[in-house]
Each structure stands twice: as structure tokens, then as C-alpha cells.
């Protein structure tokens, strides 16, 4: 098996953003939790107290916002293409989503052929940037609370909270589906490793994309 052909699934930009956001999300989550509840006070020393957490939260918030923004300026096409992919929904995508709950609990179903990213990943690709946008904007209002009208500050708090809660909820699924769920191991290494997956795996899980991009090569 060692010799099997491998094909590129995740671009370098995607991997860098994914990596940095994985790290940022967890640092922001725990430093934020320290501020909003006292359940996590045992974690305080790690961050240098609640005030330390407060400072770290702001530093990593800047990283969190800067990485995709730099990527966007550097290579806007890549982002646009990704969003185009994520917004392309057809019969196969809807079918995938409807059958997904069965697949999730282990009932065998025949999934319709999927593109480079499957319907679930498309949902994910729309979900996280939306969450990121809102959590970022509400965060700016909270950070500079005294420069914004009171009503904005007041709605920023529930928005920020909803975003991290829904984001972490989706993240639980995403982490599981992207790693320990049967059949997703390849994608995991595509994101965290060199961006490549084995050709046979790609053909099985992302048939449409594989045929379109690598299909002809194979015939030669």
C-alpha cells in the first residue's frame, strides 16, 4: 500500500488557516470560559490568572481574525472558490444530509457521490466562517464597549455567547467526524498533514471531484 498514489485535497492556505484556527479556538474558548464562569477557575494559573486570560483572549482574538484576513488579501480567489463550492447544493447534497443521521449511528446506507467536500463539510464550510464573522464583530464591540452605543454592547454579549456555544457544539461533531468516525481518517491527515489523500479513498468518498480532477489522468 505504501506506493499508492496520493492526491491533493487541502491547499496550503486552507491548512494554515485550519491549523491556526484550531489552536486559537481552544485558547480563546478556555480563556473566555475563565472569564464567564467560575467553573474553570482551576485553569486560571495556566493563563496567569483571570486577567492574564483576558489579555491572552485579546491577543489570540487578533490572530484568529488576522489569519483569514491575510489569506483573503493574499489569495482572494481561493476563498471565493471555496465559498462557491460550499454554496453549490444539488440533489446529491440534500440526499447526503438526509441519510447522514443513519450513517452517523452506524446503519449502512449508500451515500450519493460527493464533490471535493461532501454536503456535511459544505455545511461546515458555511457555518464556521459565519460564526467567525459574528463572534469577531461582537468581540470588537465588547472590547471597545465604551466607544459603541449601549444597545450594540447589550446585544453583543448574547451574540458572542451564542456564537461560541454553537461553534463549540459544531466543533464537537466536526472533531469526531473528522477523526474517529470510520472512514474519515484520510481527510484528517489531509488537513493536518501534507494536504494529500490516497487516490482510492478520494475516489470512494469524493467521487465527483476525483473523477473531474484526476479521472482523466487515470485513463492514460
Amino acid at each position: 500500500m505504501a506506493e499508492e498514489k496520493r492526491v491533493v485535497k487541502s491547499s496550503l492556505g486552507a491548512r494554515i488557516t485550519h491549523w491556526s484556527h484550531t489552536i486559537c479556538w481552544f485558547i480563546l474558548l478556555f480563556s473566555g470560559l475563565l472569564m464567564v464562569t467560575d467553573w474553570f477557575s482551576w485553569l486560571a494559573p495556566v493563563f496567569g490568572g483571570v486577567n492574564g486570560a483576558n489579555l491572552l483572549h485579546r491577543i489570540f482574538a487578533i490572530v484568529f481574525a488576522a489569519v483569514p484576513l491575510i489569506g483573503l488579501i493574499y489569495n482572494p480567489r481561493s476563498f471565493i472558490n471555496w465559498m462557491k463550492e460550499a454554496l453549490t447544493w444539488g440533489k446529491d447534497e440534500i440526499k447526503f444530509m438526509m441519510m447522514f443521521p443513519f450513517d452517523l449511528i452506524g446503519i449502512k446506507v449508500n451515500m450519493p457521490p460527493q464533490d471535493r467536500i461532501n454536503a456535511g463539510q459544505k455545511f461546515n464550510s458555511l457555518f464556521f466562517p459565519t460564526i467567525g464573522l459574528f463572534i469577531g464583530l461582537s468581540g470588537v464591540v465588547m472590547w471597545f464597549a465604551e466607544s459603541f452605543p449601549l444597545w450594540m454592547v447589550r446585544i453583543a454579549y448574547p451574540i458572542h455567547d451564542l456564537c461560541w456555544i454553537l461553534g463549540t457544539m459544531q466543533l464537537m461533531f466536526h472533531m469526531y467526524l473528522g477523526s474517529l468516525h470510520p472512514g474519515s481518517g484520510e481527510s484528517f491527515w489531509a488537513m493536518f498533514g501534507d494536504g494529500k489523500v490516497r487516490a482510492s479513498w478520494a475516489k470512494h468518498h469524493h467521487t465527483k471531484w476525483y473523477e473531474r480532477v484526476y479521472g482523466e489522468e487515470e485513463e492514460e
Partner: protein
Amino acid sequence: MPNKGYLVDTSKCIGCRGCVVACKQWNQLPAERTSFKGTYQTVPDLTANNYTIVTFHEYEEDGQIKWYFTKRQCMHCLDPVCLKVCPQKAISKTDTGAVVRDREKCVGCQYCAAACPFHVPRYDKVNDKETKCSLCPERTAEGELPACVKACITGALQYGDRDQLLAIANKRVSELKAEYPNANVYGDKQAGGTNIIYVLADKPEKYGFEEDPKVSIAITAWQDIIQPYFPWLIALTGAVSVFSFFSTRLLGVGKEKAHEGEGIHG
């Protein structure tokens, strides 16, 4: 212990700002430079170094200039929303109902500032803490008057049991009605009632007060619905994932597909 607070009788206030100075002195708050804005109000707004101010509102009525001035500071709500939203449990009520903050515990998140229906707490950038009037608990515990009340020369400020202050306020308003038909008591029911009671000679808006200040629904939704219930969604998705981890393997889906994804789960 009964709730204690003080009465601000605007009909007796002459706008001398003795209370403002006394407050700054007792709390050892540094002076802040201000600029002349064409109004008698010397301190434009509450700040981290001004726990109380006297506001001046000027109106032209029937060809005459009319002045409405009153003292502003924390109202010491009976059911303070600042206390409710504080994630660090830094805010508490004393046995006489004064709303106080533990400076050590405060992390300067400013949630209390946005939640307060009177928008009282102010952020101290230098120390990264929120500040506001504490009703001088260290003085009242020793039987002393709050600094501002002690300084008031006209008797416009009066410290005492809330019930008694309310009775005095109601009596005063009925006396004032003849000359000031819009006179009213403020603080008896606003924001669920406050320990600071006002006798206003005219409608609250004239003094820059809201007639019926309410806790914003954004704050209520955040505190009563989102924070207590939504985090369970995270636990739920975690549980579903764990369930799936086992069920997919038990039902053999994993085995059949194992050759495709041994990368991580072998």
C-alpha cells in the same frame, strides 16, 4: 437589617456640588481635567474617577430659562442586574442593601456596565476595574453618614431606612404638588425599586432620567436563556459523537470501511 439608602430631594438642591467633592475626597479619587462647554455642569458624565455628579439640564419655558439639576450615582437597586450578570461574583449586597463590588475579584469585563439600566458603572482603564458608588458601607457600618449626605448643606440629601425615606418622599411630593404639579417620587418602583429615592419637582425626563428604565431584553435573554441552557448543546453533541463511535463499530460499518481510512483508527 432594613434596607437603607438616601433621599435626594431636588426641590431642596441648590446645585452646589458639595456632595461631588466630598465623594471624591472620601474615595481619594484624582481630579480630571474638563473643558468649559457652555453649561453649568462641570463634570460632563460619570467616570471611573467620578462616582457621583450633579447634572444640569436647561430648558427655555415661557420665555424663561429653567434649570433642572440633580445628583446622579448608582441607584443601589433592590434587585441589581449588575450583580446578576457579574461572571466573577464580584458584586454583592451588604446587609443594608448597598450594592458593593469586591475590587480584587473584578476583572474589568464591563458586563455590569452594559447591563445596568441606569448605565452607572464606569471602566477604569488604568487598573482594569469597573467602578461605581458603594454607598460608603465602611462609613455607615460605623454609624457615620455617607460622605455625600454628610456634606449636603441644604438637607436635600437624607440617609435612613428605605421605608421611612419613601414616606418622607411621598409627603414631600404631596406638598410640592401645589407649586409643581408634575412632582413625583422616583426610585420607588423603577427597575424593581432602588435604595436611593428621589423627589423630582418635574417629569423624570427633564432631569435626564428614564421614566421607566428596564433591563434590556438582550441582557435577560443572555442571562436567563442562553447562558444556563445552551451550553448543554455542546454536551449533547459530545454524547452523540461518543454514541456514534461505539455504534458504528458495533454495527460493523467501521470494519467494512477500515481499509479506506486506517490512517487514524486503524
